């Protein structure tokens, strides 16, 4: 795998995990309040992480 393919794989994986977290929240699968809080924090990071990956993809590595 070259660097681009690696970033692409990471990007896809992160999107999938973010979607997974959204579905966990949407389906109300978590009872524990602390875990719910962590889930919200993780989801709040979505835009920041996606922007970083997009930047990374556009850099001449």
């Amino acid at each position: 795998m070259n660097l681009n393919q690696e970033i692409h794989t990471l990007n896809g994986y992160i999107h999938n995990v973010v979607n997974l977290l959204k579905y966990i929240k949407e389906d109300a699968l978590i009872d524990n309040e602390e875990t719910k809080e962590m889930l919200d924090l993780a989801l709040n990071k979505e835009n920041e992480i996606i922007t970083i990956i997009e930047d990374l993809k556009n850099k001449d590595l």
Partner: protein
Amino acid sequence: MVDQNLNILLVEDDALTAQTNKRLLKQYGNVLVANDAKEAHSLIKNHKFEIAFFDLNLYGELDGLKLLTLAKMMGIYSVVLSGELRTDILEESFVNGAKDFLNKPFNQKKLDSVMHRYLNFKRDSEFEDIINSNFITKSNKQTEELYKIKNLSFSEKPIFISGETGTGKRVVAHIIKQVLGFKNFVEINCSQYNDDLFASELLGHKKGSFSGAIEDKKGLLELANEGIIFLDEIHSLSSKSQKTLLKAIEEKEFFPVGSDKKVKSNFRVISATCENIHSLVAQSSFRQDLYARISTFNIELLPLRKRSEDINLLFEYFISKQPFRIVIKESTSKLLENYFWPQNTREIQDLVENWVVNGHRLITPDTLPIHIKNNIRPQDTIINDYFLDMVEEIGLTEFIVRFKKELIQAMIKRHGGVMKYASEAMKASYPSLSDFMKKNKNKSFNTRSLH
């Protein structure tokens, strides 16, 4: 979000990506997932999909382009999922039948855009199918007119269809009904009713309201609720009936004849005429306010003489409907193409049925009615012995002036006494006609009338 219940195929080899994308797609319908080319091939062969999402990066196992070709053959709208897909592969995908692409990973918003484009494509294809299976034409001008129907769903305003007899106005009204997706469609031929009967048909009546009203009857406007009322030959309505109709259209509520109970109805109006409605309005025989109310959208159907490329096509169509094969000789085809078909499509249909009834299988020029064979037109009588005598009598210059003057006068009369409409109809300049008439106003001719 688009409210649809589609059958969707997702071809994706990464299990986690497949599951997350499946979840995104599920809101649009039923999603089946194929993890490899073999599975995708089998699903395409055994299911009816409307749209498919193909990840072409299936780790070398899959020749995705072949799948695209298969999907195209099966009438599936294909979307290529591209991550770091090369431009050349993407281009080749489109050559092999892909209709759209989506960069991976994708979110809801990007998916919505793709689905929106798909639904537009689907709408266009369905529209073309309806047009092609109901109206035979290859005339660009006529097709352009028919394509106006596509956007009629964006409004609830009335539609006005104009065209000579036999051009397919009723067919177009039914096409509109189909395209707009109305189940409720009622129609009335306005020429068949006097004022009282028209009011009773349109508004309904109460039992005992007139002799013969033996029971309550719902009017067509009420029956057209949440649907369409098609008013054919609307020009034939009397002034009184026009007023009745206008009031009902404006208010969308009315009293059935003999009833004091108001009825509300939400209907869309399509009306049609074979007459020149502008002239009728100019002559005050058709209400200006009613015309304005019913003609928000206009569809004009061309007579066959203005789309002669359709004549042979229409013969082929009507012949294909017959129980046995009829062959038209080439020499006959030319005569058919040259004839001016005053009754338009209906005349072709009648002629073909006549051949069937008379057992004609091979259509030669001698099989044709004499007026078609000899291409006899009313306007051919312009140059006749009477005119030739007159030219000899008064000379060409005076004949031409007189002919032009009488022609203009006749056209002005035909167009309600309005020279502006007459000049438009004659495709002539208004100032030059006006000038000519002024110059020759008092010119007297010492010969018999041209009429």
